[in-house]
């Protein structure tokens, strides 16, 4: 009698790999191979649907047949480790980047990273946004020392390729030429947005996201572009509700 541990180990290995290992454990009615195939199909088909939903740009660029092959290869190499699938696929962008058959789309890994950021932002933790008035109350010397964390849903991406344009219109992603783009993915409220950023704005937000105070972040923006419009950019992201209200910003706001 096979132990349950042995049975489950061999069954699982047979789902993602060579099915011959499980066969001696199945009752022989001449159909056991077709019966087992139902389970193999369930795993690969359902995980393909999960990945297709999380990576719509990749699916649109590759088309059904090639996406299915990519999905199957990914499932074999990176099967899910946790039993809910809302976080499944985080390794796919790098997997694509390392894939030789996909090398003809050198930008596809970056486009996948953008898909992933959008997917992750949807279910990210909620946070109260910082209101413009919270900052208006601060004296200038305190303002430059203030940290402005982005919302928990925020992700900053930079690519040597026009990933935002590709993400907007994957059907037109043919003969793509290198052109750097940076993107902020964020979910203020219920809707996920992907906003293209200019290089100085990206440097500024990246510094803030790394925890640097506003003064240093402004300097990072100016280093990228001497004409960086700190006030305009800050006002725009404040108005969009892109910064999280922290216990300290809350307190400072009330003192003002």
């Amino acid at each position, binding site marked *: 009698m096979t132990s349950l*541990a042995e049975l489950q180990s061999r*069954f699982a290995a047979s789902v993602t790999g060579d099915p011959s290992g499980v066969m001696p454990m199945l009752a022989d009615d001449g159909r056991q191979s077709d019966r087992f195939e139902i389970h193999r199909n369930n795993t690969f088909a359902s995980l393909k649907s999960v990945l297709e939903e999380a990576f719509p740009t990749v699916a649109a660029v590759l088309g059904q047949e090639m996406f299915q092959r990519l999905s199957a290869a990914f499932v074999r190499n990176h099967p899910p480790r946790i039993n809910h699938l809302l976080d499944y696929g985080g390794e796919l962008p790098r997997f694509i980047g390392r894939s030789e058959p996909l090398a003809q789309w050198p930008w596809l890994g970056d486009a996948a990273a953008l898909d992933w950021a959008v997917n992750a932002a949807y*279910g990210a933790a909620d946070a109260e946004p910082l209101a413009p008035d919270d900052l208006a109350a601060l004296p200038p010397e305190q303002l430059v020392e203030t940290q402005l964390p982005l919302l*928990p849903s925020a992700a900053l991406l930079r690519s040597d390729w026009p990933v935002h344009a590709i993400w907007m219109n994957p059907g037109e992603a043919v003969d793509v030429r290198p052109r750097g783009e940076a993107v902020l993915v964020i979910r203020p409220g219920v809707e996920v947005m992907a906003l293209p950023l200019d290089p100085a704005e990206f440097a500024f937000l990246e510094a803030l996201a790394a925890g640097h105070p506003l003064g240093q972040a402004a300097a990072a923006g100016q280093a990228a572009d001497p004409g960086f419009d700190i006030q305009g950019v800050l006002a725009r992201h404040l108005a969009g509700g892109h910064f999280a209200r922290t216990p300290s910003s809350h307190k400072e706001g009330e003192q003002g």
Partner: protein
Amino acid sequence: MPAACSSLPPTAGFGLRHPHVLQVIDRPPAVDWVEVHTENYMYPGGPRLRQLEAVRERFQLSFHGVGLSLGSVDEPDRDHLKRIRSLVDRFAPAAVSDHIAWVKAPAAAGGASLNDLLPLPCTEEAVAVLARNVGIFQDAIGRQVMIENPSMYLEFTGGELDHAAFVAETVRRAGCGLLLDVNNIHVSATNLGFDADDYLGAMPFEAVGEIHVAGHTSRETPSGVLLLDDHGSRVRDEVWRLYDRALAKTGPVATLMEWDTDIPQLEVLLEEVASAQTRLDAAAVRGAA
């Protein structure tokens, strides 16, 4: 006599899936309760959880899990239990359930989660593992749960109990409720060649806290047809007949219409809910007579 595992009303509800959520919030149909897949709401935040709050204001909830892997030789994942606990605390569902199945490979073999409800051998060891894991589940969320009888496509060698006895013994040893899926009985009986009525007759009816009905499909394989539990169509007549026989034993009990693939317009789903409700009403009359 309602089972302690469920405080759902003895009426017909349906499985609420994402394509219908906003419509159901906007124009609530006349049902008392809906069921959701617990794993579909394991987000830290965001719109899905807010939508579920709006649903909860109008309907009672049944939380149906597909990911705890109660049949795994390893104990249930502690983080997964915490996520369920946090959803149960927040939404106070009238019932909580998962399956007589395993999803995740043993940690010693890599621990891959295969996203399918995988079959167990009908052995004493598997009964003991399920009973242990259901106990951990119930302790972790502080309430009784239900487990669902499986859809089977294959048979392992070395079975020690028949399929119905395996389910009944597991429910008894685990001290939990039974989520009786009559479509799964029909699918398993057809695929494995046993009698669906015999299986049904061996169920512990006093433990039934909810019944599932659903559609299935036929899949051609090189060696012949297998029934596939795909929840992608209306309920077949033979499943309705099994359902009526189950109701004759349980009396009116919360009944769920499940539809998970090729999801139709809500109206179609509600027609199936109405069919179940008609049968529930007839069972109530029979019970009173």
